[in-house]
């Protein structure tokens, strides 16, 4: 058994390898991106970037139908895109184990909202596990596949920025063997969700939740850590670490499965504590269910709902004395916002749009930085793919005088993710607005991952890149950086210049798939499961 210091994302990848996963798919999104990049280092797993999260989940569902264990990873808002297949897959269940890793972003370090993805577990009636460090990320991934097959359900694994991008020490295991070989097996009553079949599956799903609840009362994934005194804490995930930090003597019920909750275990624990806190980031998800059991707890009346927790924020909410740092005279300091890279082709586009006084409906990517000074040339940004459809809507709403000012802007990866349908609608409805695809041939924001328009696949195999000019619209014209049209509205424009940072590669070694220390303090051995063709790029 060897030890390694791994990020949560590296540990999820290692867990997938050890669990015998054969197929993995994802669309990049911070803080989840490095999961698939690390999975791709294991040649035993077929890893691919999908155009969007829905496609990635459907690929994984297909692999499960075929009898293979399959995993997908996405950021929290990615699960909104994949929600459609997820909700019905809960009814279908699985053949090969199916695990969905979803990474929340409390504090919105790089996201447009801080939705709490635990609600998807309740909505979809599927179990959700939540690790508290990298060691649990690895162990829970392995367990999730066992649970998936034992209870015939997709399993959600919830991470967040601090788990995914935090590093801690893990013990590595071996890849499981003896899993059944994938082969065709027909089971239409289970796999074909016609209303008649789905009606039969729904009661199965309800019984599954009851079975999981009972399982959670007996399994060590939910554990009580005995403390001293009369204070008890129910907590899970990263919040457990903060609870241990600020209340080292409290009794702790540490939940590894946050849905469904182990009701009897919670009742037994609560009966022993005079004061009971629920310490959880974001929404009162556990708190409200515990209160519905008739148990008195303190939660969101003292702990914040907005933003991420830190040990200091948790201590402040509990009214504990806080150590003070050195006294520094206060003075206003200049901010240091991120910028578009030197040489980035987006700069010229936004400069021109600003000069033309365009009303720009934007989208998600590097180019969203065009909203910041000094460019300040983006007026809306909602979600992946909205840039062009928002432009359609704004143009429909406006009178003729202002319509020509409307420009929808999105990148090539976003266009292929979910903008292609927006453009079809703009063309179909003959809307007099302009759409610009900022085609830099890469998914730049998340660290320059390839996509169907850029070429090679994740393992580095050549692929024929989709030509946007053909697929966008017959009237599309390629546009250089200096001639942005807004005076003659047409459905589609392309700005083509490769990402300025495209060929940047880190001089540091890429995240090792399996960085091992055989004997802490003496021998050092770095091993990788295979030499990589090219180190995966990753956001700094």
């Amino acid at each position, binding site marked *: 058994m060897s030890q390694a*210091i791994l990020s949560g994302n590296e540990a999820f990848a290692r867990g997938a390898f050890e669990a015998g996963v054969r197929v993995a798919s994802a669309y990049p999104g*911070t*803080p989840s991106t490095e999961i698939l990049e690390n999975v791709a280092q294991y040649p035993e797993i077929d890893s691919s970037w999908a155009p969007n999260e829905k496609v990635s989940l459907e690929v994984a569902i297909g692999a499960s139908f075929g009898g293979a264990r399959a995993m997908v990873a996405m950021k929290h808002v990615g699960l909104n895109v994949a929600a459609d297949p997820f909700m019905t897959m809960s009814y279908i269940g699985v053949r090969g184990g199916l695990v969905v890793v979803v990474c929340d972003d409390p504090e919105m*370090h*790089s996201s447009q909202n801080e939705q709490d993805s635990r609600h998807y577990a309740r909505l979809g009636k599927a179990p959700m596990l939540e690790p508290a*460090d990298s060691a649990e990320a690895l162990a829970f991934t392995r367990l999730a596949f066992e649970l998936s097959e034992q209870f015939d359900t997709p399993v959600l694994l919830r991470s967040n*920025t*601090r788990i995914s*991008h*935090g*590093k*801690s*020490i893990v013990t590595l295991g071996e890849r499981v063997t003896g899993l059944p070989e994938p082969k065709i097996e027909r089971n239409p009553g289970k796999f074909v969700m016609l209303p008649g079949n789905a009606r039969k599956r729904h009661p199965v799903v309800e019984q599954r939740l009851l079975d999981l609840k009972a399982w959670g009362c007996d399994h060590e994934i939910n554990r009580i850590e005995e403390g001293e005194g009369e204070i008890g804490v129910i907590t899970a995930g*990263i919040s457990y*670490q*903060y609870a*241990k*930090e600020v209340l*080292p003597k409290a009794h702790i019920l540490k939940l590894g499965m946050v849905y469904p909750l182990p009701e009897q275990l919670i009742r037994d624990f609560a009966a022993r504590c005079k004061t009971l806190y629920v310490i959880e980031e974001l929404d009162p998800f556990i708190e409200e269910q515990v209160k519905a059991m008739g148990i008195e707890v303190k939660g969101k009346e003292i702990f914040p709902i907005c933003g991420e927790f*830190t*040990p*200091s924020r948790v*201590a402040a909410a509990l009214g504990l004395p*806080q*150590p*003070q*740092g*050195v006294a*520094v*005279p206060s*003075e*206003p*300091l*200049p*901010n*240091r*916002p*991120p*910028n*578009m*890279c030197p040489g980035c082709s987006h700069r010229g586009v936004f400069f021109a749009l600003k000069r033309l006084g365009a009303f720009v409906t934007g989208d998600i990517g*590097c180019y969203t*930085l065009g909203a910041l*000074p*000094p460019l300040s040339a983006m007026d809306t940004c909602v979600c992946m793919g909205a840039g062009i459809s928002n432009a359609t809507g704004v143009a429909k709403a406006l009178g003729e005088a202002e319509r020509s000012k409307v420009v929808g802007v999105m990148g090539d990866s976003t266009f292929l993710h979910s903008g292609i349908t927006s453009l079809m609608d703009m063309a179909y409805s003959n809307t007099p607005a302009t759409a610009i695809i900022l085609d830099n041939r890469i998914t730049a*924001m998340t*660290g320059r991952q390839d996509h169907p328009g850029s070429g090679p696949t994740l393992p580095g195999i050549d692929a024929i890149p989709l030509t946007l000019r053909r697929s966008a619209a017959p009237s599309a014209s390629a546009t250089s950086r200096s001639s942005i049209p807004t005076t003659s509205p047409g459905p589609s424009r392309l700005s083509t210049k490769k990402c300025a*940072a495209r060929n940047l590669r880190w*001089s*540091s*070694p890429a995240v090792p798939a399996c*960085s091992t*220390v055989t004997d*802490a*303090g003496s021998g*050092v051995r*770095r091993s990788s499961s295979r030499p990589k063709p090219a180190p995966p790029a*990753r*956001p*700094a």
Partner: protein
Amino acid sequence: MSPDVKNILLAGVGGQGTLLASEILSETLMLAGFDVKKSEVHGMSQRGGSVTSHVRYGKKVYSPLIPDGQVDVLFGFELLETYRYLPTLRPGGAVVVNDLKIMPSTVAMGTESYPENIPGKIRAVCPEAKIVDGLDLALKAGNIRTVNTVLLGALSQRMEIAEELWLAGLKKMVPERFLKENLAAFQLGRQA
């Protein structure tokens, strides 16, 4: 808060190699037999934004984030970013900082101004602060991109970790072809 846990906060600008330095530091601490946790935020940092990395080590570490006012060593790669996080330093804590100014876009645009005399202000609260000319030493080591390793060398002088463990950490994390200049940079930083 656990008294046996030590806290190092790295602060710099995206692109300076702060995160690689925190990787080498964490590996070294693991080799030294400590429980280690490290936390940072990826994403925007690549594009010239502020970067911090929390590194905590000890017998048993829970929170990956350092509690406010509990930084034992503030390890800065740029003056303004170090000054920004100075209030997180515990009284009696140490500062190791690169003597380098990188102008934020807000300063370049003229909407905000870069503070005057940051080294003096740092020394006012931490008289023992080590201010290193990382760029000069990196050039002497033979590669301008080894500034982060120079700074690690300077940090290593202020931590009770055997030199061979630092070297082992470096060898593990730095590609073979860049190793020689990084080892030179580390030694120059140690002597600074």
